[in-house]
């Protein structure tokens, strides 16, 4: 087993990996940019090293800096998390050159499966149906536009190296094609350092269902079942659940087998996810392979009882997957919501800033994977994901009831979060009946929602709190000035003292 693992990431996923390392008795080493010195992953890790300025291209995306830290700290393995360099084949290659074990697939498997265009050819080779579209990155704008016209709008532009909805644009009409192409390319460049995009036919009302697979270095590949992630905003998953409410044992078997075939064909080792769209006829189409841990992996962990990060580490260390895992029986239902620092009432604008106070939900059936704490300033430089709230229950109904309850408990002041969005979704009859698809949320958000009742005790309470807030802050200028005065005095004093020997 490894002695020390470098975690090439930040935020909640770095914290998640630190936890797995600690439980396995492995030292965890993290890196931090200038704005992340106070971040939770730095506080919790065994070791932490600075890696440069805030912009990720000067810090978390710098391969050479990561390798320098790995050597300095004496690491024997590296976990990439998700995002940043997680799907860049240059990372496993650099690891090999530095005698670090990369906790993930080989560079070759990443290239064979991770690139969306390569993955599509490979899927076709093992008789897995794919969504119509280009098989290569778009090089000529006009040719691509012509193809889009032949397939018929709407079409999707997607980053070849992408994930998480970044570098993705839905194009509904020919006139939008050029600007959508430019936006997708530039977002892809910013997010993944690779501007390539490709074109795909957009299915009507499809559901997004993905299969979690695990493959060891000894040829065993197993499916841990599906997750459904059809609730998306602008192609970005916001709610994930397992099992999928539409799944039958027969469909699960077929999709699981398809996922395993694709993984085998790509020589895949470690944890990976094979994504599909499922149409209204329950036909499935291969979408892409995510050659890394997914944001939503906890959903599978809660129903199977397995710890995917620990399994990733064990696989990378050369351990065999015990046969028993092929016959894992999931228990109950799990659902995850992604809590972002953004304002659902104001066009989902990002909302970085200082967290003034915070109350985290807990209790039966609730898990919170977080990267923040009260008093910490959410930087403006990275993904707005604050936390993932995961509920487990014996049934989908119990799970939703718990998630709703936990969302009421979760409060943050100082920044905006999207909890209100989830409260709204979890009350929608369509969602409760699971009559959803990947465009459902975008459509729901276009519908006006009722203004809150001003003749309610809630409104009375709000009015009282507003007045009380004003009382406190009417007097604030005085005390703030005083505080600043004394801070200034202290600074002066410190400067003076520093001059003393």
């Amino acid at each position, binding site marked *: 087993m490894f002695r020390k693992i470098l975690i090439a990431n930040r935020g909640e996923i770095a914290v998640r990996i630190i936890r797995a390392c600690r439980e396995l008795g492995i030292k965890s080493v993290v890196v931090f940019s200038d704005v992340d010195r106070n971040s939770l992953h730095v506080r919790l890790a065994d070791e932490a090293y600075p890696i440069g300025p805030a912009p990720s291209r000067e810090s978390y995306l710098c391969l050479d800096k990561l390798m320098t830290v790995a050597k300095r700290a004496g690491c024997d393995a590296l976990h990439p998390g998700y995002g940043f360099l997680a799907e860049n084949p240059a990372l496993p290659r650099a690891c090999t050159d530095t005698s670090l074990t990369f906790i993930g697939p080989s560079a070759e498997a990443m290239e064979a499966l991770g690139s969306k265009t390569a993955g599509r050819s490979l899927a076709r080779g093992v008789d897995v149906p794919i969504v119509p579209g280009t098989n290569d990155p778009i090089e000529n704008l006009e040719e691509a536009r012509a193809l889009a016209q032949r397939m018929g709008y709407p079409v999707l532009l997607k980053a070849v190296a992408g994930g998480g909805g970044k570098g993705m644009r839905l194009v509904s009409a020919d006139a939008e094609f050029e600007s959508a192409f430019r936006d997708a390319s530039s977002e892809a460049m910013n997010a993944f350092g690779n501007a390539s995009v490709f074109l795909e036919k957009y299915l009507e009302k499809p559901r997004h269902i993905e299969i979690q697979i695990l493959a060891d270095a000894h040829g065993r590949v197993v499916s841990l079942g599906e997750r459904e992630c059809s609730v998306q905003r602008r192609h970005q998953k916001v709610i994930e659940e397992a099992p999928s409410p539409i799944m039958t044992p027969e469909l699960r078997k077929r999709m699981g087998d398809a996922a395993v075939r694709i993984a085998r064909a790509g020589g895949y080792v470690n944890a990976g996810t094979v994504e599909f769209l499922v149409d209204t006829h329950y036909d499935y189409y291969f979408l892409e392979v995510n050659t890394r841990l997914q944001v939503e992996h906890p959903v599978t962990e809660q129903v199977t009882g397995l710890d995917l990060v620990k399994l990733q580490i064990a696989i990378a260390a050369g351990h065999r997957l015990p046969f028993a895992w092929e016959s894992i029986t999931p228990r109950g239902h799990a659902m995850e919501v992604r809590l972002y620092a953004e304002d659902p009432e104001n066009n989902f604008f990002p909302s970085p800033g200082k967290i003034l106070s915070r109350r985290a939900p807990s209790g039966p059936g609730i898990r919170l994977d977080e990267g923040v704490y009260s008093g910490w300033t959410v930087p403006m430089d990275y993904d707005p994901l604050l936390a993932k709230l995961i509920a487990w229950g014996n049934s989908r109904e119990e799970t939703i009831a718990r998630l709703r309850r936990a969302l009421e408990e979760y409060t943050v002041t100082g920044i905006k979060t999207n909890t209100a969005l989830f409260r709204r979704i979890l009350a929608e009859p369509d969602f409760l009946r699971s009559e959803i698809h990947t465009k459902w949320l975008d459509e729901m958000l276009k519908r006006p929602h009722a203004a809150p009742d001003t003749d309610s005790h809630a409104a009375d309470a709000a009015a009282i709190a507003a007045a009380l807030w*004003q009382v406190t802050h009417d007097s604030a200028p005085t005390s703030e000035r005083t505080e600043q005065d004394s801070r200034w005095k202290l600074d002066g004093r410190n400067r003076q003292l520093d001059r003393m020997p």
Partner: protein
Amino acid sequence: MKYEVLLGGKTRVVELMRDAEKWRVSLDGKPIDADAIEVAANTFSVLIEGESWEVRVAPKPDGTLVLHTGIAEFVAQVEDPRTWRGRRHGAMEAEGRQQITAPMPGKVVRVLANPGDTVEAGQGLLVVEAMKMQNEIRSPKNGKVEKILVKEGQAVNAGEILAWVD
């Protein structure tokens, strides 16, 4: 202390009287059985006739307050009748000359309109990138772009004026 709270288009008169560590409350001229306390930063626990409400307060750069309680979100403007600061209704309506401010710190990545352009309500004026997302800043009204104060590539702070639409 007495305040007028304009909340959801309705004006409420809230009078707060300090009673030892608590506040006694009168609402629209009537004393009510309420007890309010700040339990954490910008977080108030309000008991009204036994009902327990928790209200979170988020001040906006324009001076209004966003209040969350349960599933309801209210926007309020508080005025102190004694100080008579004058009303700042501008922020709550989209009439007259409008300033377009950055809703968060970030970087201007694209400018979509030029001074003199006629724009519709909802039309994009600029794109600001923050937290790895590109966010389109839209016109709040039908009108004409009077001024664009920022350039592509420029970093902006929250609340900074980006443009004027008339």
